[in-house]
């Protein structure tokens, strides 16, 4: 009797354990699946782009000659790959356009982001703070293509008709600011629109970090005679340096991969290295969108595979950038946890 009840309770326990374990392993499996997505993206892009990687070699990154070749010619074999006669794929101008537009965006966004985060964390009356912060977060939610629309309709005519001619006339002696001011499409316009898209990210992250700093930091600084701004500038801001670095890198990642807004305002130049800030450019992300239609005309498929290589390079760059930011922010979180 007692042994029978023991057996049944054992069985019951076993059933419970197995059911619990199966639930746990089901969630573990899903988690692995989600983690695997990134691996799959890299794997399939690499697989698809592999013939292009073999054909293009290192010149892909260092040469400036994206050329689909003669679309009506008979395909020829180069490096064991079938391509159109004259086809070459070098994306130096894309790398230049991507890095320069991102650099301009950061030059504008970081100072503005830091200053507005300071204002939001200390300068706004406390009852208004959640609302204004919410407003900033809303801006991060506005889709890229809407920024692109605004850039196309408002920024391009404004910069092209009023600002650029003025800058050329009065500041043209500064390198990269002189020369023909162009139509408004181009490097600076792309960087400017990008900067508006990444400022909310920097501001929101930094504001949260400033607000979360221990009270003692500010109290200590003010007890030593600092004004509120001095406490903010000399004590609180240095304390969130690492968060600022992390947020800036995250913002860099976003700017590097931003597609639609850049596509609509950058002028989509081909094989052209920018000579001044008004020059039309392309970025890797926008180039993929603007070129896939014509790449599909290539009967050998090498153009589409080379675009996959562009996507692969962009993906790897963004992974490095984001991993860097996460490691930085992770250590920051670690420090905070240890401090309490």
């Amino acid at each position, binding site marked *: 009797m007692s042994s029978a009840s023991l057996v049944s309770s054992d069985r019951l326990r076993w059933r419970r354990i197995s*059911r*619990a374990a199966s*639930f*746990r392993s*089901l*969630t*573990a*499996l*899903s*988690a*692995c*699946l*989600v*983690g695997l*997505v990134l691996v799959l*993206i890299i794997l*399939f*892009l690499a697989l*698809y782009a592999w013939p292009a990687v073999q054909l293009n070699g290192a010149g892909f990154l260092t040469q400036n000659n994206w050329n689909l070749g003669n679309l009506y010619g008979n395909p020829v074999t180069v490096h064991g790959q079938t391509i159109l006669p004259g086809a070459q794929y070098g994306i130096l101008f894309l790398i230049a356009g991507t890095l320069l537009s991102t650099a301009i965006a950061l030059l504008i966004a970081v100072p*503005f982001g830091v*200053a*507005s985060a300071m*204002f939001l964390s200390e*300068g706004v009356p406390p009852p208004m703070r959640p609302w204004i912060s*919410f*407003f900033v977060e*809303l*801006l991060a*939610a*506005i*889709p*890229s*293509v*809407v*920024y692109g*629309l605004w850039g*196309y*309709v408002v920024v391009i005519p404004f910069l092209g008709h009023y600002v650029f001619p003025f800058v050329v006339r009065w500041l043209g002696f500064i390198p990269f600011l002189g020369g023909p001011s162009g139509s408004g499409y181009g490097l600076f316009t792309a960087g400017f629109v990008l900067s*508006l898209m990444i400022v909310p990210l920097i501001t929101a992250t930094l504001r949260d970090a400033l607000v979360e700093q221990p009270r003692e930091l500010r109290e200590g600084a003010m007890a030593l005679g600092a*004004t509120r*701004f*001095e406490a*903010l*500038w000399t004590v609180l801001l240095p304390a969130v340096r690492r968060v600022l670095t992390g947020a800036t890198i995250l913002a860099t990642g976003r700017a*590097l*991969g931003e*597609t*639609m807004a850049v596509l609509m305002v950058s002028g989509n130049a081909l094989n052209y290295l920018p000579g001044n800030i008004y020059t039309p450019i392309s970025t890797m992300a926008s180039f993929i*969108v603007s070129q*896939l239609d014509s790449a599909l005309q290539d009967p050998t498929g090498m153009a*589409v595979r080379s675009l996959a290589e562009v*996507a692969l390079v*962009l*993906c790897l760059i*963004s*992974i490095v950038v*984001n*991993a860097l*930011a*996460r490691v930085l922010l992770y250590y920051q979180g670690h420090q905070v946890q240890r401090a309490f």
Partner: protein
Amino acid sequence: MASGILELREVSAYAIGRRRRFFDRLGWTVSALAFLLLGGAMVWILAIILLSGFGSLTPEVLTHVTEGTGGGLLNAIEGTLVLALGGVLLAVPPGLACGIYLAEFDYGRLAPAIRFLIDVLVGVPSIVIGYFGYVTMVAMLGWEFSAAAGCVALAIISLPYISRTTEMALRGVPRGLREAAYALGANDRQVVMGISVPAALSSILTGVLLALAISVGETAPLLYTAGWSSYLWNGHLIKEPIGYLTYVIWAFITEPFESAHRLAYAAALFVTLFVLVISVLSRLLLDRSASRFRRG
């Protein structure tokens, strides 16, 4: 002599004071100005979208499909709903399960590794995910431009957001609730599904809403997975392109026709309003769930 020292001190203190006061005022002015410029630009964007958008609204926009560069947006509105809802629905089960694993069973080395992969996945440009979708689904699987390919691309974009917000939401549930449930003999599944998830439901919903807002606003991942169609969706999952609002914004604003511009503005209005409404809604949800455990 004593008064001389005092005077000297006062003078130097006064000089420092003036410099410091100047620095103080300058700092506040600069930061306030920066914020005002930023806020001004943002209000400008919203004003352009709202004014031009409402100015372009006609009954036809909601009742007709796109014809050339004119007509209405019925097909695009329908397509956006199909794609965004489909993508988010695809992403919810694995995303939820992943978030549960990361929050509830966070031991060993698997969870940090997956968390890292997810955080990096958030940063992968959406066009890369779109091209991945093109390579795998459109080209390799032969689905062509289709609703299914678009939904999967949006699901990939939604996954990390849903996973991470679910994890954060579950971490906000007090430990004591779980311990009490375990002490009463509940197993993992019962604790998670019966206690943790219901307690964190509104925060989890916030993540799902966020993913929905992002999906509605995405363009790049859809251009080469969903394609574009000016007809209503016929219910086919593959081999049938489908329209969506963000395509109209991008493609129609550069057309030289007034009718095309009106459609682009109207589409931008719908997308922006939708995103803003969802953001406000999810904020309200979050506030409610935050107040829930405040006394605990």
